[in-house]
């Protein structure tokens, strides 16, 4: 690891985050279950195959249009389990709370977490609380962990991906990241964008019904669709070619991105999944997604291609193409 201090870029979900995990944590903690660096580890116990995952939530503001940190912390872990091809069985939640935090706000966030857990049909079965001094935790941090029962039909791995496979997304992208950016209030943009935070366990389970035709699934959170697809390209050793116009982005989100000079492909989602399916199963997969309210905006956005240089490429509507690289640092608004 060449960097000598941690910078915010290490937390942005792009290249620096990847390096931090691979060159520091993986080096120190290496074991076969961790090594794939997937959304969840796959653990076997007495012949039962489980998915196991954890995630921390440090969002600011704690409440934003379309959700709050309580709901987000539950949905995020449910989604990591769901896209690993498992049914969530139980969650845990750790709350790091800053001294002086209003009790009624804390109760509201705990209620919101409980509502999200009920909606995802998974109980929060254990928890922890810690209180730290004022100024030490930006209000409140939540860490959730979860365990899920793997669907026996699902064998999801980048190595299952074949040239010609189709890439699908379950709906319009970039809503969570833009909603939070606007909610921070320093942009003075007046746009109604709600976070898309939602539990994906039902649509993920529906796709698992495709069996071996479902090759791989992820929820493109931090770093956005671009970063997730780059991880796919690197893992599969193949290129992903996107049809830029086919990628669903709501008009207000596109406007915000244009104004800020940010590419929606790099903006976080909290209620979308991206899936790779066999070419013949693409129509069926779209139908399965669209049958559910959370997949109503699903779209076919690209194709996997054999390539000696695994890249993510976007074909522009004019017949040109460009590389869609991994995120470098935080998406910072440009000067002009």
């Amino acid at each position, binding site marked *: 690891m060449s960097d000598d201090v941690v910078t915010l870029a290490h937390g942005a979900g792009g*290249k620096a985050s990847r390096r931090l995990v691979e060159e520091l944590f993986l080096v120190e903690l290496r074991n076969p279950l961790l090594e794939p660096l997937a959304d969840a580890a796959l653990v076997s116990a007495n012949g039962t195959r489980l998915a196991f995952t954890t995630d921390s939530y440090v969002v600011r503001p704690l409440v934003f249009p379309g959700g709050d940190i309580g709901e987000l912390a539950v949905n995020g872990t449910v989604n990591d389990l769901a896209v690993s091809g498992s049914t969530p069985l139980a969650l845990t939640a750790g709350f790091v709370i800053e001294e002086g935090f209003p009790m009624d706000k804390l109760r509201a966030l705990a209620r919101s977490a409980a509502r999200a857990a009920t909606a995802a049909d998974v109980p929060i079965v254990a928890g922890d609380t810690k209180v730290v001094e004022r100024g030490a935790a930006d209000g409140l941090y939540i860490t959730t962990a979860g365990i899920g029962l793997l669907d026996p039909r699902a064998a999801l791995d980048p190595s299952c991906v074949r040239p010609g496979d189709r890439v699908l997304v379950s709906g319009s992208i970039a809503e969570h990241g833009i909603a939070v950016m606007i909610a921070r209030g320093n942009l003075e943009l007046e746009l109604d964008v709600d976070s898309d935070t939602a539990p994906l366990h039902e649509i993920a389970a529906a796709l698992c019904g495709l069996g071996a035709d479902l090759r791989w699934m992820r929820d493109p959170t931090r770093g956005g669709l671009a970063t997730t697809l780059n991880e796919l390209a690197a893992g599969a050793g193949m290129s992903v070619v996107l049809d830029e116009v086919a990628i669903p982005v709501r008009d207000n989100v596109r406007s915000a991105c244009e104004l800020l000079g940010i590419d929606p492909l790099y903006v976080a989602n909290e209620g979308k999944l991206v899936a790779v399916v066999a070419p013949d199963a693409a129509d069926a997969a779209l139908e399965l997604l669209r049958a559910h309210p959370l997949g109503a905006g699903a779209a076919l956005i690209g194709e996997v291609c054999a390539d000696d240089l695994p890249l993510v490429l976007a074909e522009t509507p004019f017949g040109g193409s460009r590389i869609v690289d991994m995120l470098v640092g935080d998406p910072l608004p440009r000067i002009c």
Partner: protein
Amino acid sequence: MKYVDEYRSAQAVGAIAAELRTLVEPGSHVKLMEVCGGHTHAIYRHGLDTLLPDEVELVHGPGCPVCVIPMGRIDDAITIAERPEVIFTSFGDMLRVPGGRRRSLLEAKARGADVRIVYSPLDALSIARDNPEREVVFFGVGFETTAPAVALTLLRARELDLRNFTVFCNHVLVAPALRAILDSPDTEIDGFIGPGHVSTVIGTRPYEFIASEYHRPVVVAGFEPTDILQAVALLLHQLREGRAEVENQYGRVVRDDGNPEALAALERVFTVRDDFEWRGLGPIPHSGYRIADAFADLDAENRFEVPGARIEDPKACRCGDVLRGMAKPFECSVFGTACTPEKPLGTCMVSSEGACAAYYAYGRHRQKVIA
């Protein structure tokens, strides 16, 4: 999206691309420079370079304000930011730019400096009002595009009689940089796509010298695919007809006289420096602003001690050649190896509008085809 989609219609783009092919002599070679980093970014973002006839080559100019700030000035900024009483405010994309020790403001922040991203210089002013016990410094960077907002902020600071606000001024001027490029002996540029945003402020008249003294056509252009391709068409028309004029393709935004109020604010608050050092290009006469004497108390360079060291550009880096249009990004030996967007060595890799960064991000796969 209204007012954007119209300019990205595949049909309209296709029609202009077809027209372009009729405007070039087969086998000829036309070199056009897009001055503005925003154009470079848009060209790669939309893959427009792949739509041009083989005879037309686009070269990337010096118009990325983040890229042209020399390393010594970044080190000066870090020195100011590291003072315990200072809250250092900046536009986001300056934070990653490495200085002489390859350290950036982002790293200074990680080590404890109070560095904050703002979206407007007026936000920095609010921070100063909310923190009267701290010194708030705004990192003034950009061409005449962003300079008026900083000028108005300084006027407002004076009005409020704010004593804890200063600007570290690094604003640069576009026309002197173009003259420096035209005066460079090896330059072979046949025409210029003029910068759109800058021209909303300065208008089209400051480019007249390019037509009258250097006999090269200029077309000021917008940033959408049809804008840029239409500007190329207008330039090719001029070249075919042997004309060298300043034309305005971006008439929906740019007036020939620019924005008189913004120009008046610039005139009041800033004074043109004798020269200013540009990363990759070296010192260029009359190419930068400093804060005028009447506002000297709001100038961070007067309030704080700054080292003002001049740091040579890294030897291996060919940014100067790229900025003058004499080399393509991938012709530089450190491109994509020692110099990447994550760890930039040279200026053009720094901002997403820099030629090398745009090429790295969007165009690497075409390298073998072009080379």
